[in-house]
């Protein structure tokens, strides 16, 4: 084991805000968000790359922030659940999850919202099969997923009408 570990300087943007920090190499991105930046909306679920509760968008791509070191996000543009609301208005995807009862305990919801956003960035009118594939990396232990699919459909509809 090394005696002294040099911290590494990194710069990144989170929800549009620039940060300049020094991090220990082994710090995981999810811990940087939660412990250093106090953005606790990104959750730690399984901590084993399975459940997707820690999903954030990194340069537009959904990633599991428990499986990336913070140093790897150097230069990246991140979006977390805290960045979705604008001027006190919920994002249409957030609103649809509420309106469709697409959550119960809510622990998985931040990750699901961001996976849904990545889906919409590629496909504005997903089929049910495409929706299933898009959230296959997000585990929900409450809802049984049916209302989540309804929420994604409603969100797609709302965004189309908007």
């Amino acid at each position, binding site marked *: 084991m*090394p005696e002294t*570990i040099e911290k*590494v300087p990194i710069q990144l943007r989170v929800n549009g805000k620039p940060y300049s920090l020094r991090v220990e190499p082994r710090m995981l991105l999810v811990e940087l968000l939660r412990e250093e930046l106090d953005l606790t909306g990104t959750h730690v679920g399984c901590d084993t790359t399975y459940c997707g509760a820690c999903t954030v968008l990194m340069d537009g*791509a959904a990633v599991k922030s428990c499986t990336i070191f913070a*140093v*790897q996000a150097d230069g990246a543009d991140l979006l977390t659940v805290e960045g979705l609301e604008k001027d006190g208005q919920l994002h249409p995807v957030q609103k649809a999850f509420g309106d469709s009862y697409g959550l119960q305990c809510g622990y998985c919801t931040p990750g699901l919202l961001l*996976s849904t956003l990545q889906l919409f960035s590629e496909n504005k009118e997903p089929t049910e099969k495409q929706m299933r594939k898009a959230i*296959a990396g997000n585990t929900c232990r409450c809802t049984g997923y049916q209302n989540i699919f309804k929420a994604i459909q409603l969100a797609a509809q709302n965004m189309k009408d908007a």
Partner: protein
Amino acid sequence: MYPRAFHYHRAGTLKEAASMLSELGDEAKLLAGGQSLIPLMKLRFANPTHLVDLNFIPGTSYTKEDNGAIRFGPLTRHAEIDSSAAAARIPIIHDCAAGIADVQVRNRGTIGGSLAEADPSGDWATVLLTLSTEVRCLGTKGERIVALADFIRDAYTTALEHDELLSEVVVKIPPEGSGGAYLAFKRSAPVYPTASAAVQLTMDGVVCQDAAIALGCVGLTPIKPKEAEAALRARPITAKAIATAVEAVRAAVDPQSDMRGSADYKRTLAGALVERAIEIAVRRARGEQVEVNHIYA
């Protein structure tokens, strides 16, 4: 969960990464997509003292067609391959790239990392063993080309020397009349398959000219069942030929009983997956568009 502390090094070129490996010694490991390595480090199964990050090296993520082959950059993410022209052209590559784990893992995981990790449950080695695949290995002393079959030595063990890294994956484009399919059986998307089967055929009318089969997750490395391949080669693909091949697959695999299933169960599963993959491969070789989805328990 935190991995053990390590020193972080960011390579600017692949050559520099090889030099870093050479200088830092045995306790250094490369970080590509990290979707296998980081979980292993968090569980403290892997405890490198030095990590050499390849992710900031420009020009390492690409798929390009060149001289009858597709060249994949070592850091090409599964998601990029999924949407590439190469995947549209060679369906078995699409089956693999589109079916690995989930969206998040496909956005990070890389083809080079998957092959160099040589996880017995990985997807790429199984698929690429049914195609004519070579990997380029770059070290401080130069570059060499190794056939994939010689590259994968054992579970988590490849032909790479300590100061070498995988610098490119080169897959020959299959001849006209070819078709393939890759099918995995999984308990859910994010987990490794219980078993998987890759089949690549070259047909001349109804006669199978060439057949390649590889089975994943049922041995320490992907298994190439030679007798099963021979059962299909140089004859029409009849129900009887398929049954003989499936029987040979069951005899060739060497699965371990674990939480995903007993050895017997996996043996039966491997046979069933090969049977389905052969049928899809034949249809694709005829030019039919067939969508393949992994099977979820």
